């Protein structure tokens, strides 16, 4: 038997986390220089699931590009398709009936809750707790059923159309959503008692990986990550789009900047999304779900257009440079987790590896979305 490798006291070694590793959420590779259990330097390596979505946007017509958007972030797909249809509608000057916008807002918020639930389960599983994942998936299942009932798909929705929706919602959707809200509130209480109040959970997150507001700004972090560091920015409030200005909701902000703060922001956001859904259902106007003249063969005027929306992970932006043709001259997608992930390299220096992986979980990374 050969002798175990002896390291010099100051010697470091390289640890590869990923690209296929149960602790990373997808095919992300992190090259870590380790001093024992401590991280000296970390470098995230991307590119394993690059699919050239931006280039596809330049080769396809705007309508043909619709299914691509739901393949960025497969957990909160509706938010991304919402951004796309809004950008085209604004650029081409297409009016959207109010009912369609309300349904869009309700379904986006449902999708946000589903996304946060899945993150919650996966995050607690990162920390070693398995049961919460099962509970979260059970709750998420109700949302997927509701969304399947209207959109026909469970994950990669292609439901919004320029000028409206693919089809109208039925009474079943409204009933199911109304039933879902109180059940979800009950579950939130359960999660608060089971997870948020748990001492192991607290000890592993409190004060761990503090990210300052300054760092968030430096890397362009948005969404729950920035709001956990005291930055009060939510595109839904700051640059209201769709019908969000009609809703009364709060933007949860925590000052601590640690992993626990990011967790709390998302859990509070679920409640706020439920409030939006409730108000949306109460106010849901009757009427058409598609503009009178259904737009076909859309050509955008020559120009440069940008639309930002708040998705479950942060601010998603889509920039279209048009030369007046059926497809974009240049299409740029600004995805939130790409910016959020860059906090990781800097913040995890000097951290224990187990804390770093908990921190990575708290960033809510979806790899196909950064690696478009």
């Amino acid at each position: 038997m050969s002798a175990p490798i002896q390291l010099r006291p100051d010697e470091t070694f390289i640890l590869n986390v990923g690209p296929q590793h149960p602790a990373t959420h997808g095919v992300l590779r992190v090259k870590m220089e380790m001093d024992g259990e401590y991280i000296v330097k970390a470098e995230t390596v991307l590119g394993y699931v690059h699919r050239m979505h931006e280039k596809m946007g330049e080769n396809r017509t705007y309508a043909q590009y619709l299914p691509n958007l739901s393949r960025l972030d497969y957990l909160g797909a509706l938010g991304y398709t919402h951004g796309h249809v809004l950008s085209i509608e604004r650029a081409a000057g297409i009016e959207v009936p109010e009912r369609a916008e309300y349904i869009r807002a309700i379904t986006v918020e449902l999708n946000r809750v589903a996304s946060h639930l899945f993150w919650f389960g996966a995050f607690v599983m990162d920390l070693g707790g398995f049961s919460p994942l099962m509970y979260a998936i059970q709750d998420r299942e109700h949302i997927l059923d509701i969304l399947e009932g209207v959109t026909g798909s469970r994950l990669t929705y292609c439901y919004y159309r320029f000028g409206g929706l693919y089809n109208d919602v039925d009474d079943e959707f409204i009933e199911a959503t109304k039933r879902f809200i109180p059940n979800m509130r009950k579950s939130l209480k359960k999660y608060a008692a089971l997870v948020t109040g748990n001492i192991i959970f607290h000890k592993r997150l409190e004060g761990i990986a503090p990210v300052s507001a300054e760092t968030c700004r430096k890397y362009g972090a948005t969404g729950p990550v920035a709001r956990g560091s005291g930055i009060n920015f939510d595109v839904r409030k700051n640059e209201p789009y769709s019908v969000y200005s009609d809703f009364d909701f709060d933007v949860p902000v925590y000052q601590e900047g640690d992993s626990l703060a990011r967790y709390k922001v998302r859990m509070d956001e679920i409640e706020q999304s439920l409030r939006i859904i409730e108000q949306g259902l109460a106010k849901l106007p009757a009427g058409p779900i598609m503009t009178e003249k259904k737009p076909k063969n859309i050509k955008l005027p020559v120009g440069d257009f940008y639309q930002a929306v708040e998705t479950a992970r942060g601010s998603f932006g889509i920039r279209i440079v048009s030369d007046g043709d059926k497809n974009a001259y240049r299409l740029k997608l600004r995805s939130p987790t790409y910016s959020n992930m860059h906090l990781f390299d800097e913040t995890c220096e000097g951290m224990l590896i187990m804390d770093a992986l908990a921190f990575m979980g708290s960033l809510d990374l979806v790899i196909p979305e950064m690696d478009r």
Partner: protein
Amino acid sequence: MGGYFSDIFYGGKSLLVGLSITFREFFKPTVTVQYPYQTIKMSARFRGHIELLADDTGSPKCVACGMCQRACPSSCISLDSVSVDIEVDGKVKKKKVLSRYDLNFTTCSLCGQCVENCNFGAIDFSKEYNLASTRKEDFHFDLLDRLKRLEEKKA
């Protein structure tokens, strides 16, 4: 020192709270469906792969205009037509008839553009979800043949 004991107390309490929650789950009704022995009903709008629809006479409604083919983002649809002579009011007229309608389901994203762009209501999503194979050729569907088989079954 006080922190030490309060941690133990808090830890014990959160353990009990957690256990009581997981324990109560024991008595909740089972929600797991034992597929494939049990199945659930697919929702009315479920999007399976597309299928051709037949008119009252059992022949496809499709007029082979090719709109669906052009709208598809992933070029999954390919179709052909032949021109046949039919007699209308004693006069012989030429009519385009669908002779082949293939769907390459491996690249289909179930976006619905084809269904939306068909002005004749000739295609719709099927409710087919039991699709599994190790060969990708199994997902190249001959939809015309499928329609024929379904119509024969009905008859």
